[in-house]
């Protein structure tokens, strides 16, 4: 019962925590932005960062293969990772970009081969992917100095992408009797792995 309520409250608490964070004014963002602009910036921080998108899509697709109970645990793991990622990145200065990329390669590979690691391992993967969202701090953005509404929208958009991928995965399950549908999912998984490999090579080949 405890665990069940935790699964619901943890993601909600994280979202609220980010939305209600202190009203610090960012250096580069300015204090008089319109609400619409803040929504746009928050969304763009997710949609324009390939590494973050990969981790989100891979996580959503992985969660979609489970039943509802396990999927809830998967979501809880993901958002627990988001919470843990904040101190890891901004206090301990650990660069989690690589964690996100490596997990995207691994999760994409599992989707492509339709062979999955044990649930416990996947929960850890999801927590890692959640934590890697905070790697945004290493991509030229200072989350600690960002207006809280942008941060909230960043997380909201990330949740939308995650849920979107989850829905795609569920649709594939629903229409798996059509021969080409599971193939599409496998190909999508291989694309995630391939793009993550290239992104990794780019980060090594062109540091900074």
């Amino acid at each position, binding site marked *: 019962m405890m665990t069940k309520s935790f699964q619901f409250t943890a993601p909600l608490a994280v979202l609220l925590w980010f939305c209600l964070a202190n009203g610090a004014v960012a250096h580069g963002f300015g204090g008089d932005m319109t609400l619409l602009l803040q929504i746009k910036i928050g969304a763009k921080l997710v949609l*324009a960062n*390939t*590494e973050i998108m990969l981790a989100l899509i891979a996580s959503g697709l992985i969660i979609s293969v489970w039943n509802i109970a396990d999927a809830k645990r998967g979501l809880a793991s993901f958002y627990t990772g988001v919470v843990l990622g904040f101190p890891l990145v901004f206090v301990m200065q650990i660069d989690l970009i690589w964690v996100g990329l490596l997990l995207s390669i691994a999760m994409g*590979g599992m989707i*492509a*081969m339709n062979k999955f690691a044990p649930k416990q391992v996947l929960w850890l993967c999801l927590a890692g992917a959640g934590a890697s969202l905070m790697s945004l701090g290493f991509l030229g953005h200072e989350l600690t100095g960002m207006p809280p509404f942008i941060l909230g929208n960043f997380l909201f958009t990330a949740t939308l992408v995650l849920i979107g991928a989850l829905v795609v995965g569920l649709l594939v399950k629903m229409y798996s009797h059509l021969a080409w549908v*599971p*193939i599409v999912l*496998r*190909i999508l*998984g*291989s*694309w995630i*792995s*391939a*793009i993550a*490999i*290239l*992104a*990794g*090579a*780019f980060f*090594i*080949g*062109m540091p900074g």
Partner: protein
Amino acid sequence: MPRLLSTVIVTVLVFAAAVLPASAHTEVGAVGGLVSGFLHPISGFDHVVAMVAVGIWGAYLGQPSIWLLPVVFPTIMAFGGALGVLGIPVPPVEIMIALSGVVLGLMIVFAVRLPPVVAAVIVGIFAVFHGYAHGVELPSAANPLTYAVGFVVGTGFLHAIGIGFSLLRAIPKGDVLLRGVGAFISLVGLAFLTGIVA
């Protein structure tokens, strides 16, 4: 139904023939990188025929090759791309790309039925060189990350066209037509290999 199929195939071929020459890397920003990456595999005819051939051969071999080859190709291609980005030297890339067209075209012509793993290894070897060719241009792209997304998706698009071509088998004499497509692919590869087309 066969009439509809023929119409669809002819339409696809007409559109494929009417593609305009692409000017690579002229776009800017994230969207520019995406467009540039998507157009890169499509703008090189030697790449196009080889990747279409992968789709046709995979579909011809049936399960599991129909998904295995299009899954293996982009993943291994990414490793090749990584070698290109990192500047690790690889043996004559253009020769291997042209050779891929010749070999994969011949696989279709002679309807070679290899075990899925062997087919995947052959496709994977060629994928390294295709990836390398894209990879060396990655760092100079408008946005390398979205360029990577674009070229992986562009490659998948070409595989899908190849799988679409394999529907020719459903129409009368379709198998012969498909082998003809294989012969065309092989000849294009040969033209690049011998330097008739550069």
